[in-house]
């Protein structure tokens, strides 16, 4: 069975839970996207931008010193951190802005947590000369001042969001309010495999290149498929980008790493798949952190990009059908992971990505025989220096 189905559902998850004002736009977007994904000119243009502008393909790097330290794991890093703007987010924003252009939209909006998606959107908007507004939680603006400045340099207006928890979830609320208001001329570039249909599908399609490349590169190097795939999961776009091309390779195990924040038992985390239940937020049904009254809980993670109480619906589906396993690591463990990769390989990962690195140590203890693993190195840590200095 291929997912999503025609109505945008991944099993019981996904769908279109949005105000009526957006429904017609979403079906227009669906039509445009479905025709563009088959359109050779569009594909060619997208691939060209990925190659010439963003810097694809990215390397699949054998991390020898890290592997040696972990003993039981042979680790390959998919170097999305080497892309222009420093994370995988640019794959998706280039794709979506090309769709926006085809739909004749003149104004771009986006939400951002860590600022990586905001910067990638601001970059794409500058590249195509479109007006751009990015919503960002006031709390995140403090944590990620450097990225705010980058967006502003790129000509984007960054709007601080002071409602609710003042983080990614509230930035998304505010972006949706803008969207409902300016729906006729505005295109909303959602940064993860979340939101209403067709966004989870569309973002997956623009990120799937990560796994397509990694699969080919790994086969060339190892003449087989990897035993494990490992990626951090906030909304889950880098993870889905890596996982999707391996869906039918039943022997390849997939592990998504959520942020356990201060610890799952403290309630102060961002791990809806580990501790949430099913709910509806921001346009789709998926794993959701909520109270017993169905109110959305405030998430916590040291990584602003994971600090979100929801998750992409396809991940909830993968969990439900048992195709992927979802685990979590705490803030402290993530910082340890960040140091580990920095010192063994000379690569400073983003705090988000550091969650996947941190899990390597746990995985190394679990595997029964020497195993291979591809880790999606989704972003670099430059943006986090201030934040890390505070917590180290």
């Amino acid at each position, binding site marked *: 069975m291929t997912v999503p189905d025609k*109505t945008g559902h991944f099993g019981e998850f996904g*769908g*279109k*839970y*949005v*105000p*009526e*004002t*957006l*429904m*017609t*736009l979403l*079906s227009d977007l669906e039509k445009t996207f479905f025709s563009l994904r088959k359109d050779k000119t569009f594909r060619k243009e997208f691939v060209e931008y990925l190659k010439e502008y963003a810097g694809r393909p990215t390397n699949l790097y054998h991390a020898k010193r890290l592997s040696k330290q972990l003993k039981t794991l042979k680790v390959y890093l998919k170097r999305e951190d080497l892309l222009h703007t420093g994370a995988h987010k640019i794959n998706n924003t280039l794709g979506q802005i090309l769709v926006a252009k085809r739909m004749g939209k003149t104004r771009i909006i986006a939400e951002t947590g860590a600022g990586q998606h905001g910067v990638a959107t601001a970059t794409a908007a500058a590249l195509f000369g479109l007006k751009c507004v990015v919503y960002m939680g006031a709390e995140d603006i403090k944590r990620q001042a450097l990225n705010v400045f980058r967006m502003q340099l790129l000509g984007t207006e960054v709007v601080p969001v002071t*409602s*609710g928890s003042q983080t990614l*979830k*509230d930035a998304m*609320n505010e972006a*949706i*309010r803008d969207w*409902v*208001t*300016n*729906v*006729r001329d505005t295109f909303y570039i959602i940064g993860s495999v979340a939101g209403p249909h067709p966004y989870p599908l569309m973002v997956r399609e623009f990120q799937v290149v990560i796994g397509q490349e990694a699969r080919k590169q790994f086969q060339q190097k190892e003449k087989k498929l990897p035993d494990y795939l490992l990626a951090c999961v906030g909304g889950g776009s880098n993870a889905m980008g890596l996982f999707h091309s391996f869906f039918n390779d039943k022997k390849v195990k997939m592990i998504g790493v959520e942020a356990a924040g201060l610890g799952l038992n403290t309630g102060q985390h961002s791990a809806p798949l580990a501790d949430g*239940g*099913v*709910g*509806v*937020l*921001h*346009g789709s*049904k998926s794993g*959701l952190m*909520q109270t017993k*009254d*169905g*109110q*959305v809980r405030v998430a916590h993670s040291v990584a602003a990009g994971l600090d979100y109480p929801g998750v992409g619906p396809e991940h909830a589906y993968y969990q439900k059908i048992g195709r992927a396993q979802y685990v979590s690591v705490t803030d402290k463990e993530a910082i340890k992971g960040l140091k580990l990769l920095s010192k063994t390989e000379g690569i400073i990962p983003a705090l988000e990505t550091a969650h996947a690195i941190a899990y390597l140590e746990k995985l190394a203890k679990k595997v029964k025989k020497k195993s291979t693993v591809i880790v999606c190195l989704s972003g670099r840590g430059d943006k986090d220096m201030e934040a890390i200095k505070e917590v180290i």
Partner: protein
Amino acid sequence: MNRIDQKFKELKERKKKAFIAFLTAGDPNLKTTGEMVVSFEKAGVDIIELGVPFSDPLADGPTIQAASQRALQKGVTLEKILASVRKIRRKTNIPVALMTYYNPIFHYGEERFMSKARACGVDGLIVPDLPPEEASGFIKAARAQDISTVFFLAPTTSKNRVPKIVKASTGFIYYVSLTGVTGVRQSLPKDFVGDVKAVQNVTDKPVCVGFGVSNARQVKAVGKVADGVIVGSAIIKEIQKNAGKEDLVRNVTRFVRSLTRAL
């Protein structure tokens, strides 16, 4: 025929339009909300739209967002709101529709929620983030308890969606006057007139207009076309203005009466 249907039948016989007043349940507290419902009925309000506060009210502007936040901080929950409707029912038969985002109902369990809501005297549901496409279970559960399901039409709704929305709606159809979130507006776009008439041509179900309607002049203008007028943020603002005052209910009712008289 539930209280909402009954009300529209009566209004039609009297050739009158419905005035629908929105209140955020629990702002400033549930007791006062209950008093306002009773007092509003005497001031000519036909139907109460009772807002269930939600952590992420993405269809609402700053006024109702703030009211929701205040109510949540006071510990208002869906369960407490249902209990408070049950209490209100001892004093009045005014139709009450709950305006809630979908997650609290989904989390409660649709069937369980509908049977509880009916037992407490709720007559209808308005769910801004639930389009008919996702609502089959919701509609089935509501029909079983004779609870009206009010769906939205927007200025951006394409013609081919209209029949689906009309069919899914019972009680009335909620036409959103503008592209945007709830909140007071100085002026309303004119396109609603043609849109509302077009819908009225294809259905006998009442079409009510809300979003942005905030003063007597607008109420009058909308009432000329629509079968009902919905006012929300303007009333919430009035409540906020009178926060902490002893005569809050009386002052807010006076404002509401100035609007119902315009119909």
